[in-house]
């Protein structure tokens, strides 16, 4: 998604008074942004706390500010700077975290971001976008800047079936329909699941939804989703994020507040920051039970 993100930023920079900060990252990805922005592309060095507060200061002067790093370096290291300097002042800085979830795979848990949006959604005014497909980035950038509040953009690796054309970016999208359970997958997981379920017979095929916006109050579930829940016995939520503070918890809270019952709720989530061995994102998803094979088992379990 980095390349598509860079394209979206370059396009936006033509019409906006933009500053792009990076924490010394972006090789083979952000060169086009650097070229487009010139002196407004600022490598803030390996100093993320300073980068975030500088971003707040720049935003205070009215500039359109983006701050980019590997995801945990972007939200975990400078958390207090995000809280005090950006969120508390409702400044429309966008934090861009690359490699969300287990995206950095075998690089290890210091580089993983499986509590990122849960932590950030505890902050005032913060909104989060987790694009599903590479094609989402233009729409995601527009959505993020649709109001003047702080935001976090979690970049991952777009996954979709061969030859598939994703629907246009939207906070909630139904990727396939059937008579099976209702699934909501957050971010790129949805594209990977689609490949596995779209050709199932209709009576087995789930209603697969891709969600990409948090907290849920920022984009409530569409009516048709609620109707499908009423006709189904099972809701499965999958997210590459720890259980606490994630999309699943937020969705359940909303459903409860709306008096919408769910007979059988399955939550697929990032089970651990570390396992007995390191491995790729695919390996870690399997260890967490986030892989498509495990999803298939949940679909058929009674």
């Amino acid at each position, binding site marked *: 998604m980095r390349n598509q993100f860079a394209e979206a930023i370059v396009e936006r920079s033509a019409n906006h008074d933009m*500053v792009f900060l990076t924490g010394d990252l972006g090789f083979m990805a952000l060169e086009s942004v650097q070229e487009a922005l010139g002196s407004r592309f600022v490598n803030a060095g390996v100093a993320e706390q300073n980068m975030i507060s500088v971003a707040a200061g720049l935003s205070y002067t009215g500039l359109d500010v983006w701050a980019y790093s590997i995801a945990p370096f972007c939200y975990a290291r400078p958390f207090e700077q995000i809280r005090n300097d950006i969120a508390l002042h409702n400044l429309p800085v966008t934090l861009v975290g690359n490699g969300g979830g287990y995206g950095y795979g075998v690089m290890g848990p210091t580089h993983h971001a499986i509590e990122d949006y849960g932590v950030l959604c505890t902050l005032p005014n913060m909104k989060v976008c987790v694009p599903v497909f590479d094609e989402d980035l233009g729409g995601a950038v527009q959505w993020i800047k649709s109001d003047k509040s702080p935001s976090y953009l979690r970049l991952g690796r777009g996954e979709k079936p061969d030859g598939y054309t994703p629907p246009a970016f939207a906070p909630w999208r139904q990727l396939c329909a059937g008579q099976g359970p209702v699934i909501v997958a957050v971010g790129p997981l949805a594209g990977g699941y689609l490949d596995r379920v779209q050709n199932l017979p209709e009576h087995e095929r789930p209603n697969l939804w891709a969600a990409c916006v948090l907290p849920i109050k920022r984009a409530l579930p569409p009516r048709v989703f609620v109707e499908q829940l009423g006709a189904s016995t099972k809701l499965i939520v999958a997210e590459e994020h720890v259980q606490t503070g994630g999309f699943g918890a937020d969705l359940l809270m909303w459903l409860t507040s709306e008096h919408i019952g769910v007979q059988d709720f399955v939550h697929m989530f990032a089970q651990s920051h570390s396992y007995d061995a390191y491995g790729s994102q695919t390996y870690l998803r399997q260890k967490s039970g986030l892989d498509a094979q495990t999803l298939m088992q949940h679909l058929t379990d009674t």
Partner: protein
Amino acid sequence: MTTLDKFSLMPVSSPVSLPVSRQTKLMAKRRLLQMHYEAGVGHIGGNLSSLDALLVLLNEFVTPGDELILSKGHSAGALYVALWSCGRLTEESLKSFHQDATLLAGHPPAGRIDGIPFATGSLGHGTSLAAGIALGARFQSTGNQVFCVTSDGEWQEGSTWEALIFACHHKLKNLKIFVDHNELQGFGDTTSVASMAPLAARIEGFNAHVSEIDGHDLEALRTAANLECDTVHVIIMNTVKGSGVSFMENQMKWHYLPLNDDQYEAAMLELEAP
């Protein structure tokens, strides 16, 4: 007659016009002590060490478009009084200091008061914020200046050095950082807790322009604030914690303690104009 009524017989002068004088300093110190006494709160020592700089900067240097960041947010009282001294806060608002439903909290508040761009209080944020504003001003060619007042203990925060590196690298000549070097911090003196001495030399090592001045000398403050440099200017202000009140000076306990009735009376007597 209540204690408060008693001391209201020694009225605080009304806000002054430029420039800051010795009488302004005395008036502001008295109003600061009154405010803290009435609210029953401490942090007085560090307020008194930074008050003179805040008075000079806000009365004489911070013009529309410029910004001042109080990075040592625990000196909020001095900031409020300095803003009051130049007519940017009302007498009525000062009376709400530290009370319920106030905007004048124990640390500068977020986004609600003109002249206070950022809420501070957690040390090590202000210099980066100021650097961001200064860089934003450069990008937009506004010509605006940014002033930042830090404590000296605050330079134990790594983020402050991150900010210095950034500001020096970008040669932010529209940024002036005033360090309240009173040599006392929360639970000891700065050289015994985690020494950075000589602080000026270390900051200079990052290619900042560094000045050392008496932070209670109005003319020295003016000269430093006026100095044009080709990069960020860091002014080490040698100050006295509790400056102007003999029994408070250089005493760590006045980082914390509120004034009792006798102490308040004694302090106000010391601060009467001759």
